[in-house]
């Protein structure tokens, strides 16, 4: 295939790939489709057939028109950054389409490639998906190959057309000898190369691509970040959102976006058993809920909000007293929870505003050196924003654990909830005309209807059934993609009826609304779930991506299961209180219990989490692919999109700095020596046998590789000789000569050279009358053979013909029968007789 044809195909693929990256990010396949059509039409009609070609003037006119239309769109959507990007993307693709049908020259190919690159750059601004990374790698390889072709094409193009010209002397008007004034002109005599000249171009392409794949991550992780990695531009345009704690729960946003996981560190929690003063052994570590806030009670059009403007009533007080806690939950464990929470960025583009702190409810014995308060009405722990710029440390004791597991039920903080709050907890959105949640309500009713008769009035049974329907039925799936099927539907209704896929806020919202539709007061709670556990210290690191939303349903006292019923035991509580407080080091006095007489009438909050775990995906091939995709997504979010100064410092700079830390090396060497001497039992996994085998295997690999490489090299250098058809065809005549002579019983001895053989044969032929005239042929052909074989002489067509003629004549002469000797005369016969 011609060089230019290859280039045309490569550039077309490059352009399609670029627009595919752009269109994929916008979930708009029109742009790549347009590029495919333009590239195909341009290749077939313009490049291949030459039927339709836009000249530079016409192409410029069309380009200007397209630009004007795009600028009009830009002007109209100057405030809408999304629309701005869309207009820019369209402009790039339209201009590229025009160039495809233009008469081609190196400059046109370069412009197409440039526009394609700009599309990728725009995609990088708006992109969230890890697929962008994959497509970028593919694009990079194609781009390197296309640019390599482009360079060779451009060099050959210029070489073929360029003339070096210089006037020696200006020609006077009345020149007598015009020839004298001819310019000095030189031009390259470019040969037409075969397509095989491009063989092996993939080598440098692959080399470039692979090295780029090494360099790019290195650059990526070492370029210093000035602030948190979250993309303020994208965040500002609403193109990107992350899993991070917020009091606001909203299902409204861009129709097709991806929620990303922010790896930013939030706090570290440590759990100690109050009785033993040891780390508290938590069994179900993935299901630890750090409660944050639940103040948004009203749901409307996909958003939760609060209709009260009440200022928080701050109490530097415990929600319950330890004494009370011990009484109401005598069988529960007492666990001290220490929390060290990271400061929030309080300025700059990534400023976060939040006064909510986190705790394991129910808690008491709150202690902090900073301003940490509890708001009993909204049940949240808060610290004024002005103090959030510093690290905050506080601790509390919780009765929320039993046997290493966090309990799902806890008593309400207040004895009675006011009616307006109960009303809010049961409120549902009302639409004009049709019920906006009719599908959701129908599903909830159906689930409840499926319960046994005796459980239909049990709020806990109903709540568990609805939770299980959402979490375990397999109908709904977890996804970080935020996709809406119908924008006119309520997002929760759309989730239940159409999409059936979403993240925790969707599940929590839908469950809360379903519970309300069944008359159970419920609210959405935001906080954190799970964490990264350090088994040595017993601490749990919580990052932003551990942010979670779940539901609390209000259960009347009469429906609380017996094992959660309070069992007043004053004697136990009295013996417990002071020792416990001393052990905990809690300050303040043990207050009298105001609610101890009333605990029996208090309601309880049942924690419900309808979000299916991602590990719950069934083990089908597709689900495994999805899981791999999710893993890639998480890695992409964590290490690419989520790379921020903190991550960079923790994972890149600090380990790198440790490489130069002499103390660390000394420690390492000490450990190695200890392991070698057997003093340190922790290094017993080191096996000398395995080491020897590994070392031997490495040596084998090394020598094998070197041997293979040298063998390939030898083979490559030998190959041209063994396959040199030219030399074989050039000396064919000598082989034929030997063949003809062999048929006449002339065989060259192994000790004879070709020349010696030819001379010997020539002498014999000269003695025969039929071959005497051709006696010199072997010698002449042998001389010619020497010239061809060793003198690099190439034979012309006429020489070939002459050789063939001589060989034919020699063959005929040798095949002719020898003439009989003249008949002897009778006298001679008599004399001889």
């Amino acid at each position, binding site marked *: 295939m011609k060089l230019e044809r290859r280039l045309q195909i490569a550039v077309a693929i490059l352009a399609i790939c670029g627009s595919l990256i752009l269109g994929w990010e916008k979930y708009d396949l029109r742009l790549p489709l347009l590029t495919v059509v333009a590239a195909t039409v341009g290749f077939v009609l313009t490049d291949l057939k030459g039927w339709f070609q836009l000249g530079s003037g016409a192409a410029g006119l069309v380009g200007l028109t397209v630009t004007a239309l795009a600028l009009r769109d830009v002007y109209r959507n100057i405030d809408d950054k999304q629309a701005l990007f869309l207009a820019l993307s369209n402009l790039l693709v339209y201009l590229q389409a025009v160039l495809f049908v233009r008469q081609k020259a190196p400059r046109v190919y370069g412009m197409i490639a440039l526009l394609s690159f700009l599309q990728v*750059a725009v995609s*990088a*601004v708006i*992109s969230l998906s890890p697929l962008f990374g994959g497509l*970028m790698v593919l694009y*990079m390889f194609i781009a*390197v190959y296309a*640019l*390599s072709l482009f*360079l*060779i094409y451009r*060099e*050959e193009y210029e*070489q073929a057309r360029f*003339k*070096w010209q*210089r006037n*020696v*002397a200006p*020609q*006077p008007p*009345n*020149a007598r*000898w015009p*020839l*004298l*004034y*001819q*310019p*000095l*002109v*030189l*031009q*390259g*005599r470019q040969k037409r190369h075969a397509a095989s*000249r*491009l063989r092996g171009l993939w*080598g*440098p392409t692959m080399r*470039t691509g692979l*090295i780029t*794949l*090494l*360099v*790019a991550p290195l650059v*990526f992780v070492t*370029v210093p*970040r*000035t602030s*948190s*990695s*979250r*993309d*303020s*531009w994208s965040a500002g345009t609403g193109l990107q959102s992350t899993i991070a704690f917020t009091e606001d729960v909203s299902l409204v946003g861009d129709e097709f976006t991806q929620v990303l996981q922010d790896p930013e560190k939030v706090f570290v929690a440590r759990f100690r058993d109050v009785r033993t003063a040891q780390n508290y052994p938590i069994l179900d570590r993935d299901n630890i809920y750090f409660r944050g806030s639940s103040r948004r009670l009203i749901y409307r059009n996909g958003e939760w909000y609060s209709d009260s403007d009440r200022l928080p009533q701050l109490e530097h007080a415990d929600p319950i007293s330890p004494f009370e806690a011990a009484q109401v939950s005598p069988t529960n464990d007492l666990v001290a929870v220490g929390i060290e929470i990271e400061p929030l960025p309080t300025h700059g*583009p990534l400023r976060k505003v939040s006064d909510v702190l986190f705790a394991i409810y129910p808690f008491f014995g709150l202690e902090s050196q900073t301003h940490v308060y509890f708001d009993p009405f909204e049940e949240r722990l808060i610290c004024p924003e002005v103090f959030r710029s510093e690290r905050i440390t506080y601790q509390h004791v919780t009765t929320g654990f039993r046997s290493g597991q966090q309990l799902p039920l806890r008593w309400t903080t207040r004895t009675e909830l006011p009616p307006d709050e109960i009303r809010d907890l049961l409120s549902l959105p009302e639409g004009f005309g049709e019920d906006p949640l009719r599908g959701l309500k129908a599903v909830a009713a159906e689930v409840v209807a499926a319960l046994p008769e005796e459980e239909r009035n049990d709020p806990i049974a109903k709540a568990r059934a609805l939770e299980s329907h959402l979490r375990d039925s397999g109908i709904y799936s977890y996804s970080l993609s935020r996709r809406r099927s119908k924008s006119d539907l309520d997002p929760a209704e759309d989730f239940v009826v159409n999409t059936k896929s979403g993240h925790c806020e969707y599940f929590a919202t839908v469950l809360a609304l379903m519970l309300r539709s069944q008359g159970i007061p419920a609210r959405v709670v935001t906080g954190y779930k799970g964490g990264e556990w350090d088994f040595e210290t017993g601490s749990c690191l919580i990052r932003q991506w551990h942010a979670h939303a779940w539901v609390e349903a209000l259960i009347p006292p009469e429906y609380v299961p017996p094992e959660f019923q309070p069992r007043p035991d004053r004697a136990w509580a009295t013996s417990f209180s002071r020792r416990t407080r001393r052990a905990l080091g809690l300050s303040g006095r043990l207050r009298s219990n105001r609610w101890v007489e009333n605990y029996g009438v208090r309601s309880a909050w049942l924690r419900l989490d309808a979000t299916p775990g991602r590990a719950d995906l069934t083990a089908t091939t597709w689900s495994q692919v999805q899981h791999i995709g999710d893993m890639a997504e998480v890695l992409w979010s964590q290490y*690419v*999109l989520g*790379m921020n100064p903190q991550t960079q410092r923790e994972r890149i700079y600090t380990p790198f700095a440790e490489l130069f830390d002499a103390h660390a090396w000394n420690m390492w060497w000490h450990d190695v020596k200890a392991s070698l001497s057997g003093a340190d039992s922790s290094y017993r996994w080191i096996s000398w046998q395995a080491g020897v085998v590994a070392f031997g295997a490495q040596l084998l690999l090394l020598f094998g590789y070197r041997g293979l490489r040298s063998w390939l*090299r030898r083979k490559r250098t030998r190959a041209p000789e063994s396959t040199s058809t030219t030399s074989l065809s050039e000396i064919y005549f000598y082989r034929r000569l030997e063949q003809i002579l062999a048929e006449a019983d002339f065989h060259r001895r192994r000790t004879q050279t070709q020349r010696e053989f030819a001379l010997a044969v020539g002498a014999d032929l000269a003695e025969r009358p039929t071959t005497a005239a051709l006696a010199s042929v072997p010698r002449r052909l042998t001389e010619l053979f020497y010239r061809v074989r060793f003198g690099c002489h190439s034979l012309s067509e006429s020489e070939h013909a002459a050789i063939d003629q001589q060989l034919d004549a020699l063959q005929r002469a040798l095949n002719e029968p020898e003439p009989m000797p003249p008949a002897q005369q009778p006298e001679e016969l008599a004399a001889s007789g």
Partner: protein
Amino acid sequence: MSRRPRRQNRTTITLEGWYFLGIMGFILAGALLRHMNLLILLFGLMLGPMYVNWRIVAHSLRKIRVSRSAPSSIVAGEKLVVDIKATNEGKRTSWAVRVDDKLTSVSFNGVTLRPGVLFSRISPDETLSEAYEGIVPARGRYALGPLKVTTRFPLGLVRRTVVHQVNDEIIVYPRIGQLTPAWKERLQSTYHGSRPVKRQQGLMEGDFHALRDYRHGDSQRWIHWRTTARRGMPMVRQFERQRHHDLALLLNLWVPEGYTSADLECVELAVSFAATVVSDMCQRGQSQLLLGTAGAGVAITRGPASRGLLTEAMEHLAAVSAGTGDNLARLLSDALEQVPPHCDLVLVSTRGIDLTDHERYGDIWQDSRKQSMLSKVLLIDASGPEIFRYYQAT
């Protein structure tokens, strides 16, 4: 202040490379200011090719050897073909290797051209040959070299240049025209001088002596048809009374101060005419030839007309340059001392000359031998139309 000389072997960023770096800088600035990690990734993906381009170009030319094959001399107006050979002694294929030559006119106004050839692909242990060609219209000495080997492969962002000191020289001879019959007639009349020309009766001039190759100007009647048929090439009969014209050809290449193109044209016409005469004489042979020039200096070349003299004389004419000084008297004096009395004398001048000027040529007029020779000089003024009577420029 002396300027620091540029390194001959160097790696530079091309114009496209600077554009690329500009885009990279823009992307990095946007990424850092707007906290866009993907733009940093894109920056990394751009830095990689830039780095690889630098490494590949640095490696590509390390084992490339180049040589040039050029003719040592050509005639002005004829095609010049210069072969460039490149050998890859390395183990990796080199791509898009460009070899640029440098052609500089040494003799005259220092015209310089930088022609080049392209080797799209040179495999390991492969030697390839490419050529550039063209017309060199003006005579003179031309220097070739050095050879500059460059590559920008694969992306054209970084260029590696390696200079090989491969230098040659080409001598471009003056253009050869055609002598008209009038030239021969005029030369003969000069030879016979005042002696009456004895017309030979019959077809031939003298007795048959031998057969020789046909030369331009020979009469068709001299062709020996039988031998021509046998040999396949025209052969003519040669006679005993061959006239051997010894010739002294003198050129006065004078130009005024502030000379114009027309003045230079006269010079070139005179030189070309001389080259044509010399070529003709040397092809004929059997005569003595003296070529003298008075331009920027005085130079004389003489000897029996032969191929060796032709080369020497053509090199003389290729390099001769006009001058504003009057060196004709010296040339005449030197030349007339060296030529025999029967020698034909032709003086081609770029301006009108009065040889009877006793003041100017006093030394010659005082010498009786020189005086007699000077009187039979054939004077041709190259600035007038007279030269075209004897010579047709091509």
